[in-house]
């Protein structure tokens, strides 16, 4: 059992507030008393473990809810918080960049199958987008970042469309018609979403919707090319799997 008269000193030693004379006396005692030394060690471990506990971060939604309530109650000006939208547009750019890389890989595979001597295409240099407004490279604001993400996706779509046309008679007519119809549906949805965004340029929902539709078009075109590869290899099981898997969302 730890010596009662030293308990307080041990606690103050852990606090770092023990004066030098009492500290020297205590250390002499701790050298001689196993119980007190064990007691001090236990308290020190608790204190050090407590000090090492991580600072916890609240999820982003907490701030969004606070900001929303303050606006609702009319206690702040209307301008929305910047940080969450900036983070969303940065995420969109990252997704677009990843899709561009995967598109490049798809096109490389297709080109090797068709003509191994040809130099593989890359997605490094953005090509002129197919019939859509060119976007500036500047990323000072959220809208510019979104336009850049949109441009990347549009570039990817152009490349995929060109690649899919190189050998499109490999797919049977019925499947080709179904794929074409899917593309038409998505293209129409993209056009509607663009129109909505033109009317409400600050609308996050319209922007998200357009981004998602462009992403879906990329995925559909990638699947088309993958299907062409499987058909060319004579792998009907692989082709069936691509046809039957739901469009990625």
């Amino acid at each position, binding site marked *: 059992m730890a010596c009662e008269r030293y308990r307080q000193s041990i606690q103050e030693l852990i606090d770092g507030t023990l004066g030098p004379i009492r500290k020297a006396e205590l250390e002499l005692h701790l050298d001689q008393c196993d119980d007190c030394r064990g007691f001090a*060690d236990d308290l020190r471990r608790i204190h050090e473990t407590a000090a090492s*506990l991580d600072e916890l971060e609240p*999820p982003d939604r907490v701030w969004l809810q606070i900001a929303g309530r303050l606006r609702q109650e009319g206690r702040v000006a209307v301008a929305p918080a910047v940080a969450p939208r900036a983070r969303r547009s940065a995420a969109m750019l990252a997704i677009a960049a990843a899709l561009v890389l995967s598109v490049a890989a798809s096109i490389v595979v297709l080109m090797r199958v068709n003509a191994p001597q040809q130099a593989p295409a890359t997605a490094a240099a953005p090509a002129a987008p197919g019939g859509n407004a060119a976007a500036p490279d500047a990323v000072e604001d959220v809208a510019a970042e979104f336009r850049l993400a949109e441009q990347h996706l549009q570039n990817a779509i152009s490349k995929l469309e060109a690649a899919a046309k190189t050998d499109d008679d490999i797919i049977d007519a019925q499947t080709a018609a179904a794929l074409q119809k899917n593309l038409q549906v998505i293209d129409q949805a993209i056009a509607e979403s663009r129109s909505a965004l033109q009317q409400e340029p600050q609308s996050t929902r319209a922007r998200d919707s357009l981004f998602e539709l462009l992403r879906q078009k990329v995925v559909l075109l990638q699947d088309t090319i993958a299907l062409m590869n499987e058909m060319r290899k004579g792998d009907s099981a692989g082709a069936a799997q691509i046809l039957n898997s739901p469009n990625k969302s």
Partner: protein
Amino acid sequence: MSSSKVVAHSSGAPAAASRQGDAALVERCRQGDLGAFEEIYAAHSGRLYSLVCRMLGNAADAEDLLQDIFLSAHRKLDSFRGDSALGTWLYRLAVNHCLDYLRSRAARTNQLTSALDQEFGLDDAGSRRLAEQTLTKLDLERALTRLPEGCRAAFVLHDVQGLEHREVAEVLGIAEGTSKSQVHKARLRLRSLLSGRT
């Protein structure tokens, strides 16, 4: 061993500059500047959320309470005079919210709440040495939730978040000596819990 981690600086030019910065931010918030309040949130939400999580022992409840704390802080900004640092003022608000919440929860579930000065297990005869066992952060987090709320607050502020006893006393509205005794009791209780006596 403890060094203060809180925004409240003890003295001198850095403290004065910090207070001026706090005052400017608070004034902008009073004018309806959401960006200024977001700066305050960014600077203090981590520490406050950590405190609330450890007081409540539940992340979901802690999120809701953190929201209430900051909304309450925004409403009460008019009453912030700058006598203490903004961080200390926010800590005080957060602790009060936590204690109200815990007492309300205890009342709803008919649990007995322990008095601030409850004596418990100071006689450690027969207890296993903690040093003989592994002590993980998770062990300690769990044991924290079993401390009486008064000394839990003092322990979290002092040993976990690194406030000095003087600052803990200011946050809790108690004497510095009481802060020391509460933290010391918390350590003894934790030692007892962690060594498997209870």
